[in-house]
């Protein structure tokens, strides 16, 4: 019962606005601290890989960016589904706030992957299943944002874009398992696998800390964007005056 009361609070824009204002600085501060420690661990303390030498350090930026691009899409699709099913306006605002951040991290994943691919595979880009599916993810983000921008009625824009987000979530497991389902140049899962990770602990802890840093960073940026989204959506609501004065 208490859990549902807590859940229902997230349907209230003023409560969510206050929650976002309180928590974003904490998430942001913790993210920065974790990022700095993880960078020191990954670039200075971790030993070179026996095969990839120092090029393996690319993992400390590429893997968290790629993981975040998927996590943000999943968050966006879940929020869109909640908005569609329960007609919760805040959920649509969360989905809208996720999209630009997710698109940027997909660009980061593709760009850093290209810079890792050149010394390892001899080419910046190959039409590999993992890379191609990640590129499709970028187009899904663009499609979501384009659809929202192209429909004037906010309610219709919410509904149409939410449907695209929910349908597009099928691409997330395709990206994750593409390296197992098809022949791929991309390496298989190193950390995110059941059982023991393949990495040595000295290399693993900075990576895990960087994953945590990126997750905290996303929470901070999402909450800031959500406040902006709520201010634009609730333009006629009386609570806006209270929070701005």
């Amino acid at each position, binding site marked *: 019962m208490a859990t549902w009361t807590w859940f229902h609070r997230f349907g209230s824009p003023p409560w969510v606005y206050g929650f976002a204002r309180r928590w974003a600085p904490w998430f942001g501060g913790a993210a920065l601290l974790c990022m700095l420690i993880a960078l020191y661990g990954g670039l200075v303390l971790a030993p070179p890989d026996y095969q990839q030498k*120092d*090029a393996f350090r690319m993992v400390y930026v590429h893997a968290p960016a790629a993981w975040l691009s998927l996590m943000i899409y999943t968050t966006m699709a879940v929020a869109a589904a909640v908005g569609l099913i329960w007609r919760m306006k805040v959920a649509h605002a969360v989905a809208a706030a996720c999209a*630009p951040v997710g698109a*940027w991290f997909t660009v980061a994943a593709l760009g850093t992957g290209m810079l890792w691919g050149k010394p390892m595979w001899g080419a910046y880009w190959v039409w590999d299943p993992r890379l191609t599916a990640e590129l499709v993810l970028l187009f899904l983000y663009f499609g979501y944002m384009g659809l929202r921008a192209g429909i004037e009625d906010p309610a219709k824009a919410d509904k149409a874009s939410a449907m695209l987000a929910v349908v597009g979530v099928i691409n997330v497991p395709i990206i994750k398992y593409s390296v197992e389902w098809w022949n791929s140049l991309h390496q298989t899962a190193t950390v995110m696998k059941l059982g023991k990770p393949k990495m040595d602990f000295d290399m693993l802890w900075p990576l895990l800390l960087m994953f945590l840093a990126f997750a905290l960073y996303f929470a901070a*940026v999402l909450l800031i964007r959500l406040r902006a989204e709520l201010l634009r959506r609730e333009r006629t609501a009386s609570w806006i005056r209270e929070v701005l004065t």
Partner: protein
Amino acid sequence: MSEFLSMGGYGRYLWPAFLLGFGIVALNFWMAVSSLANAKREAKRRLEMQS
């Protein structure tokens, strides 16, 4: 120091990758803060017009 920067000859790929990744981290933060500042400005202007 130069040994650290060369990263065993992979520095020319590694540093641009870090610059791109963390540049996007910084850019996203700045864009979010700027979006909130704009939304606040718009909302305040609307409130002033109403009153």
